[in-house]
């Protein structure tokens, strides 16, 4: 039904489009006269607004996110410069082509759809229309060769109503999608613009990854330097002193040796924690499935883990997924005041081939109110996942429950 409404909006829209196209062409052609310049700028603003409305509609229709406006930024300079930028932007001309094409395709898609619907309604109520309208109108529904003489005869046409309505019902969505595709093809960003945006995004995520890794390395270096390394030095000192004292003071030596042993034990604990932070051994041993189960086991809040994985995944994916889930889990433990936590990890292969999508769901029955903007925890996960083109969404109304949904594309 909403499609019918859209038909009614989009169809008159083409009239406006045609007006705009004319206005535009006229203003460009008189741009040389001077008055054309502000007129062109005005027309451009209107056309772009009009095109944006259609982009939005097409995106809603196709269920795909609206790409950023594909226009080149207009410099904040004099009117001639701005006009020149607009005229040089290929998108400007694609908009114009779209205005022309649109005024035809809309009639084919929305118009046809609307026509089917109207026919359906008209035929369904034909006897009524026949009765209500003055004679000579609606007497020849199919041309001169088929003339109706009475209300009873007009009932013959009623079955055509459902046929047209069915036709409308079957084709409406397809025609609307076709229309949306035409709009997307002409108004969406060009391949070049898409690539430019992709390169931009990759550059950002790479910069973040490099930053994060450099930070990690600094932390590891600091931990080793202040921790294990220092303890080994103190161990050496204790042993050296013990060696020196051995002949004279066996009691002090015993004390020193005990201290030395304590030092090694501390150093080992620190190294162990460090290794866990870099790559948890259980993840190396057992993969994502085993590591998550081990994680749930030492968790103060009862946690169920459900995994559907086709064996081991590529190591970087396993690691990213593990840390993302671990972080989301510790967030839930720290802030949610939950009674139950549930972790679901699922791998959905793409058709044919080993590539696919790993989705991770961490949900709790806590108090909700989590958001990416509020804490550093979720933001950290977003950055970690972004390096793999992964995404994170949070559904956490105040009062709960909270659901953190993460996804990681896996290419192999």
């Amino acid at each position: 039904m909403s499609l019918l409404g859209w038909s009614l909006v989009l169809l008159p829209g083409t009239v406006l489009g045609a007006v705009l196209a004319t206005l535009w062409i006229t203003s460009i052609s008189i741009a040389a006269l001077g008055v054309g310049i502000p007129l062109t700028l005005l027309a451009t603003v209107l056309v772009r607004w009009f095109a944006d409305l259609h982009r939005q509609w097409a995106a809603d229709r196709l269920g795909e996110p609206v790409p950023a406006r594909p226009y080149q930024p207009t410099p904040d300079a004099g009117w001639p410069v701005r006009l020149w930028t607009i005229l040089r932007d290929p998108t400007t001309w694609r908009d114009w082509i779209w205005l022309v094409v649109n005024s035809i395709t809309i009639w084919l898609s929305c118009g046809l759809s609307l026509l089917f619907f109207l026919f359906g309604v008209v035929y369904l109520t034909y006897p009524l229309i026949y009765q209500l309208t003055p004679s000579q109108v609606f007497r020849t529904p199919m041309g001169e060769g088929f003339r109706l003489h009475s209300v009873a005869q007009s009932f013959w046409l009623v079955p055509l109503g459902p046929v047209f309505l069915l036709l409308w019902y079957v084709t409406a969505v397809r025609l609307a999608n076709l229309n949306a595709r035409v709009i997307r093809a002409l108004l969406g960003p060009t391949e070049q613009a898409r690539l430019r945006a992709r390169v931009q995004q990759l550059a950002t995520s790479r910069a973040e990854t490099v930053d994060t890794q450099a930070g990690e390395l600094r932390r590891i270096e600091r931990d080793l330097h202040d921790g294990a390394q220092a303890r080994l030095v103190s161990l050496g000192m204790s042993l050296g002193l013990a060696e020196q004292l051995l002949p004279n003071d066996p009691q002090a030596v015993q004390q020193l040796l005990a201290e030395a042993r304590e030092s090694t034990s501390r150093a080992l604990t620190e190294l162990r924690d460090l290794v866990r932070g870099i790559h948890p051994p259980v993840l190396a041993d057992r993969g994502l499935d085993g590591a998550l189960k081990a994680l749930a086991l030492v968790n103060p809040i009862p946690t169920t883990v459900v995994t559907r994985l086709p064996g081991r995944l590529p190591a970087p994916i396993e690691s990213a997924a593990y840390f993302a889930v671990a972080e989301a889990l510790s967030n839930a433990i720290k802030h949610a005041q939950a009674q139950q936590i549930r972790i679901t990890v699922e791998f959905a292969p793409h058709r044919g081939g080993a590539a696919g999508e790993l989705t991770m769901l961490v949900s709790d029955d806590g108090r909700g109110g989590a958001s990416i903007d509020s804490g550093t925890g979720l933001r950290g996960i977003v950055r970690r996942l972004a390096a793999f083109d992964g995404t994170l969404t949070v559904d956490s109304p105040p009062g709960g429950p909270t659901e953190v949904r993460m996804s990681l594309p896996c290419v192999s």
Partner: protein
Amino acid sequence: MRVVIAEDLALLREGLIRILRANSFEVVEAVDNGPALIRSLTTHRPDVAIVDVRLPPTFTDEGLRSAIEARRQIPGLPIMVLSQYVEQIYARELMSDRAGAVGYLLKDRVTDVDQFVASVRQVATGSTVMDPDVVSALLTHRSTDPKLLELSPREHEVLTLMAEGRSNAAIAARMFVTEKTVSNHSNSIFTKLGLKPSEDDNRRILAVLAYLEG
């Protein structure tokens, strides 16, 4: 006491051999990979096996898997597993056959030679010894369990030491109380946890751990 060692790092293997020999164990064989471990255990049938979790050829948990496999072939074979880190999931797997006589310790516990040797002997004689890290993780992380919340701090302490494989006498010495007090505490623990008391140390610990496994 005859012992088989499986450890792939030569330095640590030699260190273990030295410690055990100095404490009058007979090291019948020291191997450095999983398949060799199973072969050695089935051939020599030692009193106890000391096994590193991570062994070649996979360098993951080959040692653990081989030990569990060997135990399937020789039921009740006492096994002491050493690891750079402890995971509850591995502790569970080790005890899954419920035939007792397992040990699971962090590698650095070896540096306390007396305690380590005592632990190996305990496992060889049929006790279960869990690393304090495993036990404390079990106790603290499950502390929301109503049954565990009923335990007094003293009982908590006794339960921890018990799970580490210590005898009542050792627990008494450690806590500066009499053996009678320890035995009273343990009876009270069994009642609160709903477990039937038993004189058998090994079964006692297995029962406690089985409860903690949930």
